[in-house]
Every structure is written in C-alpha cells, then in structure tokens.
C-alpha cells in the first residue's frame, strides 16, 4: 500500500481508513442537446478490502455509469465526471490518461456483460490475455505464455494450450466470459468491477461463472464491485448491497438485512416483484409506473411518482441518506428513526 502511494504523482488528500476504494460526491452529467442530463447524482461509497459489494438497479439507474467513471472510461467530450474517486488514497479522477492506463488492468480491472463485444475478434485468445500482462509487467515472452496458460487453467478452461491459439468466435458464451475473467485477473488486480457478468449467459452457465467468481474471491481475496439487476445473483455472491435509483444510492445494507428488512419502498418493491422459485405467489406485486427519463424529475424524491407511501414533503425535497441501525436509506419515512 505504501509503495503504491509513493509512486503516485496525482496523489491528493488521502483517505486514512482501510478503504480500498472511496468514492465521494460523484456526479456524472452528459450533454444532451443543449442541456446537461445528470446520470449519477452525488454518489458516495466505500469498498473495504476483500469484500464483494453489489450495485443494484434497473436500466438507466446509473450503475454502469458509476463503474465506468471509476475506470476513467467516460469520454471527456461526452460526459462530465465530478467528485473524488480514490483508490488506496490515490485520486483517480482527473489523472492523466497515461497514468490511468497503468492502473487499469493492473489495480482495477473490469468484466463486461457481453464477452463477444469486449473481446477483439481478430486476435487470438492467448495474445489478448498476454497483452495485459505485457503492458503491466516486464517479463519475457515465454513467461507471459506460461502465465496466460496458468490463468486459463484457473478459470477452468479445458485444453488451455490449444485455446490460446484460438479466436473468440470459436468459443461458447460461457467460455468467452471465462476468458474475460482470466484477462481481468491476469495481473491480480485489487479491485474487480463486474458489470452484469452473467446476464448474457444461460442459467446453468451462470451457475458455473458465479461458482468460479466465488472461488477466485476466496483464493485472491479480490475486492469485487458487482453491477447487476438480478437480485438472485446478489443474494448468491454479495456481502453488501447498494441500491441505485435515478442516479442516486437509495439504500445500502449488508445482504442479509437488505433482503430481510428492506427499508426503501423501491427496494421492497423490487424484492416483491420478482417471482421466487422457493415460494408461490398467485399474483406478483409490481411497482407501478415506469422509471422516469433522466432529467424528467428535478425536485423532490425521484421515486415519489411510483411510491405508495409518498407524502407532501416527497414532492418538495429530495431526502438525504438517513443512517439507521444496520443500513442507510434515502427516504423521508425514516427521518425520525435515525441513530447517532
């Protein structure tokens, strides 16, 4: 940790705690016609070393934009990223592109939803994984090949010595996702961001990949930020959960508390609206209405239009995060239940 801080140039005030990643007041805006649309609105959170945190939300909630900002992958001409993102005390936001490249792939890496579009179709598997190692570590060619094969073995790819000479289209979806994971883990990153890693996969293959991620987590104690809309996957793999709605974190809790006593009406609505294999409901209990478009709601709580508990104050003032005993929640219903 100390060595990393020494070599950083863009270092600013460092976070003293044991947090691996600390995001404070993250705002992301995009240009749309002549206005700016807020995609992520004042998001703050910390990731501790070794934990798996799920960022849950529906399409357009800003979960992927949050992860792309951490990676520094929001194009400058399109989006405005504001706020502080610190990895082990090193400020990432505003870092020159060249330095960011030394962090991406080595300190933080990312797995995307669609492995077919995120692998290069004209390069061999082995070359693509090898490139990650070559970029970050100064080792010989034979060593790189050896490491590549090792990584493929670790993610459970059969006949890795043959696979390194194959192209992405020759592999199935599950295999491609394994290759993506091998590539992301090749330099043993401190933080792995997995953006909907199993959404494009069939359930039996999803089970394999979740199993693999759980194994790798134990083996390397990698911190994982899991972006997903699937509460089943969350329950399976996460230690802690953050729920996003309309660009904001509306609830945060450990996984047991969140599923047992969700406090935000949106979280409760999400949990109630999914059919569950273990219990039988004759009718689902959906959240009414639709997710509002970005920029549509400017005052008050953005969820109020779909909320059964909306009060007068909800249409006037957006609630802050209230800290309860085991969770934080952004809802006026819990205003008077705050602790500390």
């Amino acid at each position, binding site marked *: 940790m100390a060595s990393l801080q020494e070599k950083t140039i863009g270092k600013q005030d460092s976070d003293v705690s044991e947090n691996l990643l600390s995001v404070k007041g993250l705002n992301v805006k995009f240009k749309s016609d002549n206005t700016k649309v807020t995609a992520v609105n004042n998001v703050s959170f910390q990731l501790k070393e070794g934990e798996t945190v799920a960022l849950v939300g529906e399409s357009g909630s800003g979960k992927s934009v949050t992860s792309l900002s951490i990676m520094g992958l929001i194009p400058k001409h399109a989006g405005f990223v504001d706020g502080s993102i610190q990895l082990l005390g090193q400020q990432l936001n505003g870092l020159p592109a060249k330095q960011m490249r030394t962090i991406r792939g080595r300190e933080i890496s990312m797995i995307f939803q669609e492995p077919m579009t995120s692998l290069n179709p004209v390069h061999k598997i082995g070359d693509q994984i090898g490139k990650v190692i070559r970029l970050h570590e100064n080792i010989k060619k034979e060593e790189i090949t050896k490491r590549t094969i090792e990584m493929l073995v670790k993610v459970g790819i059969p006949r890795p010595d043959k696979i390194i000479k194959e192209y992405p289209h020759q592999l199935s979806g599950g295999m491609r996702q394994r290759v993506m994971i091998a590539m992301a883990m090749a330099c043993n990153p401190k933080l792995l961001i997995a953006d909907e890693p199993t959404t494009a996969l069939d359930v039996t293959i999803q089970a394999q990949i979740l*199993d693999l991620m759980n194994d790798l987590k134990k083996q390397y104690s990698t911190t994982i930020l899991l972006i997903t*809309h699937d509460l089943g996957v969350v329950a399976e793999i996460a230690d802690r959960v953050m729920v996003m709605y309309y660009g904001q974190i509306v609830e945060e809790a450990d996984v047991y508390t969140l*599923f047992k006593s969700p406090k935000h009406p949106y979280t409760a609505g999400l949990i109630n609206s999914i059919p569950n294999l*273990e219990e039988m409901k004759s009718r689902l209990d959906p959240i009414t209405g639709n997710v509002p478009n970005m920029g549509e709601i400017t005052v008050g709580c953005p969820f109020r239009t779909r909320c059964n508990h909306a009060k007068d104050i909800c249409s006037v003032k957006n609630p802050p995060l209230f800290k309860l005993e085991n969770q934080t929640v952004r809802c006026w219903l819990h205003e008077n239940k705050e602790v500390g």
Partner: protein
Amino acid sequence: MKNALLEVADLKTYFPVKGGLLKNTKEYLKAVDGISFTLEEGDTLGLVGESGCGKSTTGRSILRLIEPTEGSVKYRGAEVTSMGKKELRKLRKEMQIVFQDPYASLNPRKQVGSIIEEALSTHGIGRDSNERKGMVLDLLEKVGLNATAYERYPHEFSGGQRQRIGIARAIAVNPSLIIADEPVSALDVSIQAQILNLFQDLQDSMGLTYIFIAHDLSVVKHISDKIGVMYLGRMVELASKDDLFARPSHPYTQALMSAVPVPDPTIKKERIILTGDVPNPSNPPTGCTFHPRCRSCMEICAEIAPKPVEISPGHVVSCHLYDPEYNCAT
C-alpha cells in the same frame, strides 16, 4: 375435463445446413426433434430451456411461421400442418404471437393506433374505421395504456409500454391461443411483474390459452399450469407445475432448478453444477443428447435416445433412468 385446444404430436422442424462448393444440403440442424404435448383450453404451458434448445422454433412451428418438417399440430381437432393459405389465414385469427423484443416488433413509422388497427382490418373486424378506432381505444385501456397512446409512435414509449402495445395487437382479433415468446426477458424486473400480471388478468377476462416461452424458470413457474423442459430440440420432461417442482425427475431439470439463484441470502441450496456447454445442435451427441453433461449417465445413454416414459399420470420423462427396460438399478 377441459377440452384439448391444441394437440402437438411428434413435431419436428429441421433446418438444412448448406455447405461445400455447390452449396448442397450437407446435413440438417434438428431444431425441434419430436415434441409432443396436449394443451387444454384456458391453461398455460410454459416452455423452458436454455438458448438453442428449440423452444422458440417450437412456438413458431405451431403457428407455421416456420414450416415444420414432420409431425402433427391439431387445433380444435383440425390439422394445422396441412392447411392451405385460406384456412391458415382464418387460423391466424385464433392464434397470435407476442415477441420478445417490443423494440423490433413494432413498425417505428406507424402510430400505435394504426399498428393495432391493422390487425383488425386485416381480419375484417369492425365495420368502418370509426368503429375500429373505438375498438383500439378499448384495447389500449385493457392493456393499461392511456388513450393518448393512439396517436403516438413506438419510440415514445418505454420497453414495458411497448410490450403492452404488442399484447394489445395480439388480443385485438380476440384469439384463443397466444404464444408468448420470451415476452418479459427484455424488461426490467419491476416492469416484468406488471406485464406478468397483465397476462394473468387477460387470461382470466378473455379465457385465453397461453404457450409461454421463457428461459427464466421462476417466471415460467409463476405463470404456468404445465411445464415442458426442453434440451437440444427435445422435451426431456413434461409435467404439471406442481408435479415438476415436487418431483423434478430428469437430471437436466434437476440441474436447471438448482442453478437458478434464489433472491434470499439465507437459503444456501446445494448446486448441481453442470460441466461443459450446451452442445452444437447441428452436431448433437449420440443417444441421449444430454449424456455428456449428465451426472447419472449410463452406458446405454450414449447409444440409444431415451423414449418418453410416463412416471405418474401426466408426468413424462425422457430418460433411461426411468425406463424399466434399461435401468435395472431402480
């Protein structure tokens, strides 16, 4: 006893795979390879399976949107596979389809009103455009859309609302059977529940019969009375919902059920992790197509394809484990 609305027997749909210099048909891809089931009026049959198992092709072959190669499909006793164009057109009024992607299945250049009205005028429903407009407005209300939707275009709607438009178009001609092909898989969870409820409401009010195709076992369980589990073009297990979940019998069904993540962190279920991937359907394994991934695989499984065995009334499994001829162990 309810009437059988649809009887499907040994339905096969093969696609020719062309290759070589002269583009001759080299082999056939057996997308659907001998599917049989009966569907009673007012019931919902769920077809579940992973990508490439042939569940969508089954749905389309029943409608003859894809011509089946062999087998019989009887709708109210009438053979669908041998119908001529005229009869088929009449039948389309009875059987409708709702597609997965509401973005791709609605004409972007047409107003919602005229998209739905087209279904009416094609089948000669309604005396004039005025009457049809009234009917369309009723339909919009039925599926939970505002009357202002009539003059708007598909791109002005969210995914869930577009799916409502697709459903309105399907029920416009007052069909008996709706084949819904992954109708909720492109939708967010909170919207998915709204659409599932809409399907149930319409079934109650219009007495509809559904074939509900989905890859999500929890969704299929929620909406179906009867469930067929498909693997590589074959139906490996068919049973009533209660029977299937009380006694999942085919090793694939068991693995599929155990693979579904449960949204409850306190439940840690024992996982059956299948090794390997779904094989290429153009070159399926010999014998039982599931045998390379099966944990109960026997010698016979690689040689002979299992026949369907009825293990209890209405519960059919295609697996040698349940065939007394081959399995001496049980």
